[in-house]
């Protein structure tokens, strides 16, 4: 991520934009040296679990263990508790639980856990739309640009744009979020999708939103696209936006 910011610093034409990117790099350094959060919004704890199907878990529930980890991590790590227990009554749960947990069964006898805390500011600017298949690539491009334009300064640009194309509504949203797990700027292994990623990145950056939305050529550091087979009637597209604080950690048990 720092590498991507450095590249943006070198390429940014707006002086204010350059100054902002410099502040973001300084901020990341302070956060790392002093072991404090780089952003006060330490997110919703989104946890991806790749569970080997030969694994047998004893002594309790995996979900409880994950939530206990979140509870301890957010309390002992002085991270902000940002979760309300009921979306309408809105009382803070006080320990940032529960996590949002996605479990995938995979071959083998290991458990891989990826923690990807997600801030509210960028998540709020995300969107999903069921396009008509006839709208094709141009429809997808338009929806991405409309979403990023509407988000403007809100998700703290420069951003990473995760795009999920295909599947059903929830599948498109999930693969859009999975797209954000890739290191910033690492292309999709499929050449035709990698080409689209680079086109979409140019299109997004031509919007002029720039760092913090104050104008510039680095609105996004990367656009990552994931695809999935679709129904003959459907072309779902989900756009999940991440700020530059793209914080992910994984562990294998």
């Amino acid at each position: 991520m720092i590498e991507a910011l450095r590249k943006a610093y070198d390429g940014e034409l707006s002086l204010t934009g350059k100054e902002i990117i410099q502040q973001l790099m300084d901020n990341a350094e302070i956060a790392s040296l002093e072991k404090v959060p780089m952003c006060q919004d330490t997110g919703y704890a989104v946890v991806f679990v790749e569970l080997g199907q030969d694994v047998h878990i004893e002594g309790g529930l995996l979900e409880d263990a994950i939530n206990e980890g979140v509870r301890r991590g957010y309390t002992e790590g002085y991270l902000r508790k940002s979760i309300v227990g009921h979306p309408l009554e809105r009382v803070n749960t006080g320990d940032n639980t529960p996590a949002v947990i996605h479990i995938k069964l995979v071959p083998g006898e290991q458990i891989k856990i990826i923690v990807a805390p997600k801030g509210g500011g960028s998540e709020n600017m995300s969107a999903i739309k069921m396009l008509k298949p006839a709208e094709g690539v141009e429809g997808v491009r338009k929806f991405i640009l409309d979403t990023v334009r509407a988000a403007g300064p809100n998700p703290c640009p420069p951003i990473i744009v995760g795009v999920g194309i295909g599947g059903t509504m929830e599948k498109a949203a999930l693969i859009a979020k999975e797209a954000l797990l890739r290191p910033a700027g690492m292309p999709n292994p499929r050449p035709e999708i990698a080409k689209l990623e680079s086109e979409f990145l140019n299109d997004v950056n031509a919007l002029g939103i720039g760092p913090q939305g104050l104008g510039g050529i680095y609105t996004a550091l990367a656009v990552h696209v994931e695809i999935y087979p679709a129904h003959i009637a459907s072309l779902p597209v989900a756009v999940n936006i991440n700020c530059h604080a793209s914080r992910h950690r994984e562990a294998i048990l």
Partner: protein
Amino acid sequence: MITKIKLTTPLSDEVVEKLRIGQKVLLNGVLYTGRDAAHKKMIELLDNGESLPVELKGQIIYYVGPSPAKPGRVIGSAGPTTSGRMDAYVPRLLALGLKGMIGKGKRTPEVIKAMKQYKAIYFAAVGGAAALISKCIKEAEVVAYPELGPEAIHRLVVEDFPAIVVNDTLGGDLYDEGTKIYAAK
């Protein structure tokens, strides 16, 4: 390097009226924090004809929900949150003499109009630069709604807090102007 203007709260109409979009400022003095839940509660008080827990005349509200302070520190990380969520509540607070707001992201036309009418400024701080910003915060105490946790109203004392004028008392909008310059024709 562009010169930065030093401002100290409380702000007067005279000071506020001279500020223009794009100007970089260093804020000093007291800032009050407040976000969604605190704004909702303040408006409920006003609806019931009661007074607010803090005097807002001439003051600045910083839209932030800080992370907890580690031992020995004044505050945790404390960068701006998205301002638009507070828009519905803002004109009534401006009418009470609130002179400034710090956050990130665009304001509605209603808020921009109210800033012209009541002479107030909207400043942007760098979203995500929360560890850096926390270094400017010298004092912090909860002065209202402790039950809201990170959403409680804090009284902060800041030194040279960096911000940029996004909306001024003439109705200008730096987000619109900045984007226009760099948008591909």
